[in-house]
């Protein structure tokens, strides 16, 4: 079998941008609220269907769809946090896990009811266009998706670093009680963070819908990949998430050299379990561990 390695790597990097978008919401919600958002998968799936409706029914340009979808999902996330998730904030972690799992089930089955189980695809004018750089053909579609995802993340990074609300979100993630002491309304901030996380999931779903086929069960494998990335990258930093996304995308792409394509997802789930068990600190944790020993500078 002849495999074009450079093209494989370029493809993996482009996919990593999408993975980062999808995982950052998960990391943000975990960071601020210390809850694992299983409903993330449902939100991604709804994002995909929202894109489908906006693009095919309203005839919006596929790459402008996020402009409509992101605010919509931000609102949805705020409402979810205010009326449902907030009630289990201080309960044992398992209740929030089960609660969000229940929400995921509801979202999934509402989608089955509304859209049936048929697999859908969105074809854009650019779906089949490619261009060549240095002999590597790149899909325009994937490049634009990558660009939108990265743009959103960079914008968010600026927001978190340079605005009051952004700094308050980071402070709450670091220490909720201390943030309250200095006068941050952490309840409001959590609502906001959940909104942002949900909006990111919606955006990721929209972008994925432009590349992959989807059905109401879509999102479960991506959720697992998201966990994998978050655990790989550590929960604190944007850089970590980007790094984790890159590692996972590359591992997946290169796994084709070793195992058959049908087992590609197996690789990412295996990585998830292995990383969770042997290096809970992720890549950053590994670096932090090796630094004092002088292995890495």
């Amino acid at each position, binding site marked *: 079998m002849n495999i074009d390695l450079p093209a494989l790597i370029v493809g993996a990097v482009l996919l990593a941008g999408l993975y980062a978008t999808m995982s950052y919401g998960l990391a943000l919600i975990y960071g601020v609220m210390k*809850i*694992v958002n299983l409903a993330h998968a449902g939100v991604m799936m709804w994002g995909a269907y929202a894109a489908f409706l906006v693009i095919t029914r309203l005839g919006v340009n596929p790459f402008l769809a996020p402009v409509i979808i992101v605010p919509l999902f931000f609102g949805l996330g705020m409402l979810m946090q205010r009326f*449902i998730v907030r*009630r*289990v904030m201080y*309960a*044992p*972690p*398992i*209740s929030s*896990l*089960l*609660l969000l*799992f*229940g*929400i*995921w*089930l*509801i979202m*999934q*089955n*509402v989608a*089955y*009811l509304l859209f049936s*189980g048929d697999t859908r695809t969105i074809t854009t004018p650019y779906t089949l266009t490619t261009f060549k750089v240095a002999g590597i053909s790149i899909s325009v579609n994937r490049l634009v998706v990558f660009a939108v995802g990265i743009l959103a993340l960079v914008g968010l990074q600026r927001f978190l670093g340079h605005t009051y609300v952004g700094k308050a979100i980071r402070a709450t993630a670091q220490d909720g009680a201390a943030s309250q002491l200095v006068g941050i309304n952490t309840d409001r901030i959590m609502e906001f963070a959940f909104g942002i996380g949900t909006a990111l999931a919606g955006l990721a779903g929209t972008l994925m819908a432009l590349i992959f086929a989807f059905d109401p069960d879509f999102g*479960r*494998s991506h*959720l*697992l990949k998201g*966990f*994998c990335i978050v655990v790989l990258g550590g929960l604190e930093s944007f850089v970590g998430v980007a790094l984790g996304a890159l590692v996972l995308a590359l591992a997946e792409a290169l796994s084709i050299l070793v195992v*058959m394509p*049908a*087992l590609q*997802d*197996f690789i990412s*789930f*295996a990585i*998830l*379990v292995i990383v*969770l*068990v*042997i290096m*809970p600190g992720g890549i950053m944790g590994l670096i932090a561990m090796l630094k004092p020993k002088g292995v890495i500078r």
Partner: protein
Amino acid sequence: MSKLPRSFGRRPFTWKLWAGLAGLLFLLAIPLLRLAGGYLQTLGFLTFLYVTMSTAWNILGGYTGQTSFGHATFYGLGAYTTTILALRGVPPLLTLPLAGVIAAVYGLLWGYPCLRLRGQYFAIATIGVGEATRLLMLNLDDLVKHSALFEGLLRKGVLTGGATGLMLPTPPDIRAYATAFYYGGMALMFVALAVSWWVKNSKFGLGLFAINMDIDAAETVGVPTTRYKILALLLSAFMVGMAGSVYAQYVFYIDPQTVFGFPVSIAMVLMPTIGGIGTLVGPVLGAVVYVVVQDRILTANLTLGAFRLSLSTMHLLVYGGLLVLIVLFEPKGLIGLLRRFVSWWERRGPQRVAAASSHPRRGEP
């Protein structure tokens, strides 16, 4: 005052005993009566199977508090062990304990590393394990074909049959066979319940409850937390594996999507949680509700004028809604709701007596 609760406490016991006996007799008589053309018998068998699974999950998920979304791996392995061996000439019933053992061994394989994770991380890891196992079983044949070491496992070029699944031959007298399985399923359920009861009332169970409440504190007072968690997983896996084996023998056909599918794992999370997590009776109640609701909804069609809606995919919507309501308002599940109702009823009783006795006095001039 002190006499009242005692007499209250004794009478429901005999009442419960008689009701239990009547219920048991009814369950035993179902195949003989052939109610609703054997429909009740099928439903009963499914309920026994689900009660077994629900009770088994509850030992790890309820008593120990380690929520597993990967129990379908045990169910599937049990089903596949039995089917693969039966196709090679082993009597299916003899494979039953082996199915449990293989499931437990697999449980040890992934449980040993994963159980070191805490709470939410364990739950995520189990989703990963479940999905990875399903993908592996889906593609196992292709992997085996290419390796000289395992090639001998194939029979007519097939080990697991991939997505096509495996088919068992059906016996000649299907009705007697089904009836036998009805009683077999019932026996399995009672074994599972006995094990669950024993665990709950043993020192081992006490350790599990301690782990659930505070693992660090449990460790401090000398509970061997890791060993207990693994033992709970093994026990749970063994019983779910046997349930999977019984299922395979009953339906004669299995494929990775049905026995290893995420819905199987979801069912095992939902039943005990809805019924009452960490209790003995809760998982039973949850499983009964699960089977009945699923059965009612799968066959229902909602007709609103010209608009016909098939509800066949709705049952998970109902359970999702139930799960959300239960987590928000009654974390102890239906059992908690029932207990709340009973205590409300008992509190209400004496007041009414008092009101009734005071009434004539007030009527006096």
